[in-house]
């Protein structure tokens, strides 16, 4: 092959581009990033300059702002109350370390919680908030800003949300709302598993992150949730069999169901080992979508598919 052909070969690489969806998503993310790290902030802070390619994690800078922010949290809340909607809306996208973050977690989320009247709705909310905390961690980790301090703050908050979501979904289950309990666990499991994968990956690829303890917590929660879901699913099946009295024998192939695939690379060996003995025997066609979905997630998650 001569040089001309080789050049043509290399030319082909020019056709490789970002997909339209990726480009749009990245542009939005970048613009959001630019608006959360404004020029005015840089001028105000003054020392946030970095050389090319230097790791962006700067613990002392973040910790200083954190201390400052904790002190001013009360003032931030007061301002939020006075200014109203605009500030609290703007706070929705805030990350740990941002000026409006206290408004988001101490004000907005407590307001949401106040409007969650039942155990089921509060359980759903807490699962959503757990997801929000993990997404914040992931966003910071992409920038190498998931320092030990921020990590520990997120761990504490995540632990609260996780415990609340689990306790309340158990209560909801006892009250008879089995569907919500299963849906909350399924949602938690998907979030937790995906997050283990993402955070582990970012920890390995981006400098400045100290997220090992956080990842361990998330993994523990994921395993516990998978256990709870498997137990609940087994119970549903047993109950259902008793009720159905063996009249229905249509079999459901839970594994062929593509719904709610957690699509995470993280499959710990212990997870798959301990779950292999859980037989998800869905030998009846269950019409209620939630139970069906939970069965599918339970089976997928627990068997490590």
């Amino acid at each position, binding site marked *: *092959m*001569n*040089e001309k*052909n*080789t*050049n043509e*070969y*290399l*030319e*082909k*690489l*020019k*056709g*490789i*581009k*970002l*997909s*339209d969806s*990726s*480009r749009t998503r*990245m*542009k939005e*993310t*970048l*613009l959001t*990033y*630019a*608006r959360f*790290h*404004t*020029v*005015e*902030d*840089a001028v105000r802070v003054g020392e*946030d*300059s*970095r050389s*090319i*390619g230097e*790791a*962006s994690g700067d613990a002392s800078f973040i910790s200083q702002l954190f201390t400052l922010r904790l002190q001013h949290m009360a003032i931030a809340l007061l301002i939020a109350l006075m200014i109203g909607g605009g500030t609290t809306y703007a706070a929705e996208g805030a990350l740990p370390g941002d000026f409006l973050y206290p408004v988001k977690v101490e004000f907005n989320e407590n307001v949401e919680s106040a409007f969650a009247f039942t155990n089921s709705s509060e359980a759903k909310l807490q699962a959503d908030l757990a997801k929000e905390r993990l997404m914040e961690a992931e966003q910071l980790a*992409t*920038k190498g800003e998931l320092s030990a301090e921020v990590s520990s703050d997120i761990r504490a908050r995540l632990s609260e949300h996780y415990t609340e979501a689990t306790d309340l979904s158990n209560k909801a289950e006892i009250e008879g709302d089995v569907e919500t309990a299963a849906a909350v666990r399924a949602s938690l499991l998907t979030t937790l598993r995906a997050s283990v994968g993402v955070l582990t*990956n*970012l920890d*390995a*690829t*981006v*400098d400045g992150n100290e997220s090992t303890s956080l990842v361990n917590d998330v993994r523990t929660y994921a395993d516990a949730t998978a256990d709870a879901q498997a137990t609940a699913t087994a119970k549903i099946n047993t109950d259902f069999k008793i009720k159905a009295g063996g009249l229905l024998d249509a079999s459901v192939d839970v594994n062929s169901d593509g719904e709610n695939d957690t699509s995470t690379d993280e499959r710990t060996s212990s997870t798959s080992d301990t779950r292999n003995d859980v037989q998800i025997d869905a030998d009846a066609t269950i019409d209620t979508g939630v139970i069906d979905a939970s069965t599918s997630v339970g089976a997928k998650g627990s068997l490590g598919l």
Partner: protein
Amino acid sequence: MNQEALEKIFLQSFDAYGDAIFRFCLVKVSNRELAEDFTQEVFMRYWQALRDGKVMTNTRSFLYTIANNLAKDWYKKRKSESLDARMDGGFELADPGPSPHIDAEYREALLKITDMDDEDREILMLRHVEGWEPKDIAEMLNVSANVVSVRLNRAMSRLQEKLQI
């Protein structure tokens, strides 16, 4: 410069160089998602520099330097992991080509070039895919233009050898 004006420059730079930086990262890390993450990270650091008031004499070169540094850090971290995993994992294209046939061609071209050593593929990419002049490559890699020419010739012959297989 105010926020609005800088945002405009920021987004224009992304439009102008986003694809090229993505390609560069893709060839370095052989994984679509990771290459996208790196591209995003490159531009976030670029924004940090813009807001800190850094005067950009050569935006393109600046972006590639960041991408190159990120990739270097990544390689260092990966050394403890299996090097085979990357090759075994194969290639994921960001966007399917206009037809399966062309898609397969991209894939093949990528596999061949990622199979080469880092220095070879970096220089081949910059020269023949991105169309950089040897003097610009020399500036970015901090070597003389002569060294670039020599490396280019050698890398090209190695690629030719590969393609004959």
